[in-house]
């Protein structure tokens, strides 16, 4: 047996447009979901296009792109694999289905161009996963935006790609359609062993889907790492503002059926969340927004708040005027709390202070 191929995604290149330069040197885990995150115009989509081969990097930048042992571009060796010879699945922002083909033919288009030996994902599995079985004879023009996007994802998956590239697949959809697609993307994550690069500028999407993140800012990588670590790093814009919060990976340890609650354990303690119809030992992704966490010096008795966690203050950073973002360490798990500057002074909080974090709300995001 040969040694297992290194599961890494390398991408090093520069792409210049007038007034904009994207320069990245990424070395990421080649498994799970990686979010390319940043404001619009930060270069997320360009980055995805260069990795796919749809856009060419600058000729003099010595670009190198390799995914799990397959080299797709190596300027030093004069190698550039054309797009159609790369085992990618690409989902465009606006689905981009073939209007002259029905849904079934759209799915077949890519699939029939892949050798049978390389088809690892069954068509039936893809159709079931995305819930599009009833749409097969329909024309793209008769589908809703959400349906179109599901077909586009299925079409990409049907080619059994080695890497799935999603370019803001939810951006063109309203909140309701987004909510319709997100569960399918989550299933994708849990049911298929397929590395995914996901372009997004929405924190809530990333919190639900991404294992790791690459933060892009004006064409540069400002940070890269595990999602739950970046979300609580006070030096990053991600950990500021109304949507800032911690991401907690917990395990279901029990149910309180009488109260419709589920117990979720994580290294820093236990959270009670709304009842989840899942078995003991299942993983839960929990999101605790900074604005939903308040701090006390002593554990409160006689409070309606269920979730109170002992923690230590790690650092502060100014948020909006009068507001301070506090980074907390709860038994090894990072939390954020957004409190007023006045409270910081009133409680005499300093790095190292022992506090109790009162968690008013926990969202289950996966």
């Amino acid at each position, binding site marked *: 047996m040969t040694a297992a191929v290194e599961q890494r995604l390398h991408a090093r290149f520069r792409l210049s447009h007038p007034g904009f330069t994207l320069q990245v040197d990424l070395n990421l885990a080649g498994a799970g979901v990686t979010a390319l995150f940043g404001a619009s115009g930060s270069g997320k989509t360009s980055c995805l296009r260069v990795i796919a081969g749809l856009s060419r990097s600058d000729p003099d930048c010595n670009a190198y792109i390799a995914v799990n042992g397959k080299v797709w571009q190596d300027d030093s060796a004069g190698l550039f694999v054309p797009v159609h010879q790369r085992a990618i699945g690409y989902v465009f922002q606006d689905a981009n289905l073939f209007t002259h083909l029905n849904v079934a033919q759209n799915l077949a288009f890519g699939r029939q161009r892949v050798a049978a030996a390389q088809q690892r994902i069954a068509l039936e599995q893809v159709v079931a996963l995305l819930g599009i079985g009833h749409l097969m004879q329909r024309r793209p023009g008769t589908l809703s935006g959400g349906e179109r996007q599901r077909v586009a994802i299925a*079409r990409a998956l049907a080619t059994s790609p080695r890497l799935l590239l999603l370019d803001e697949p939810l951006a063109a959809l309203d909140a309701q359609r987004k909510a319709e697609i997100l569960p399918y993307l989550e299933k994708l994550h849990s049911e298929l062993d397929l590395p995914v690069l996901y372009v997004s500028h929405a924190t809530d999407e990333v919190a639900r889907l991404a294992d790791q993140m690459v933060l892009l800012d004006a064409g540069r990588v400002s940070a890269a790492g595990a999602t739950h670590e970046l979300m609580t790093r006070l030096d990053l814009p991600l950990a500021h503002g109304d949507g800032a919060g911690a991401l907690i990976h917990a395990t279901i340890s029990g149910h309180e059926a009488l109260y419709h609650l589920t117990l979720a354990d994580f290294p820093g303690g236990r959270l009670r969340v709304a009842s989840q119809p899942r078995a003991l030992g299942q993983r839960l992704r929990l999101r605790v927004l900074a604005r939903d966490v308040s701090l006390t010096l002593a554990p409160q008795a006689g409070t309606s708040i269920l979730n109170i966690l002992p923690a230590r203050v790690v650092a502060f950073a100014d948020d909006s005027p009068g507001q301070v973002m506090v980074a907390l360490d709860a038994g090894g798990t990072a939390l954020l709390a957004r409190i007023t500057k006045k409270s910081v002074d009133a409680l005499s909080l300093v790095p190292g202070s022992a506090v109790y974090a009162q968690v008013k709300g926990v969202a289950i995001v996966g």
Partner: protein
Amino acid sequence: MNPAYGGAVVLTLKLAGLTTLILLLLGTPLAWWLARTRSWVKLPIGALVALPLVLPPTVLGFYLLVALGPHGPLGQLTQSLGLGLLPFTFSGLVLGSVIYSMPFVLQPLQNAFEAIGEQPLEAAATLRASPLDTFIHVVLPLARPGYLSAAVMGFAHTVGEFGVVLMIGGNIPDSTRVLSVQIYDHVEALEYTQAHWLAGGMLLFSFAALLALYALNPGGQRQGAAQR
């Protein structure tokens, strides 16, 4: 019906059919290039092939006659290739028609290709289709309305041409005497009945061609735009 009609009708259909076929084959790569290139030569080439739209056919026919004649550059070329001289032959007529009807085939194709845009091509590439594969299985089906328009316009326009034919084809029965020339002959000879038969036939044919085009292709070019 006068048997001379038959000769002229068959000749006209042969000329128009052959011209349309050649134009679709030539026009496809040329229109594709014009639709996709960013080169500065796109403009002069585009203007050159569109010239027959604005040029009097007799001007075009005159230059062709000179160029194809025994002292013209093309004439010397065809002679050295052993093809002889093309003026006043059917081949010469085909060449003239191809040039004269070029814009009527090229522009619908170019419009159709431009309406398709970059997106379906990129989608096809990410679905493992090579550029040629993409052209055959994505571009051609999406450009179908454009091909229909191009074929009908090219055919009908060749059937109706007169000036170029007269200049380089002359009026030789069963070789270069096409319908339009024959109508002219009849009118010159004050044979209005015969002229009516032929002219009426052409009118009906042109109407039927356009009707078929619209029926086969509801929405026409607008469909291509709406797909984007």
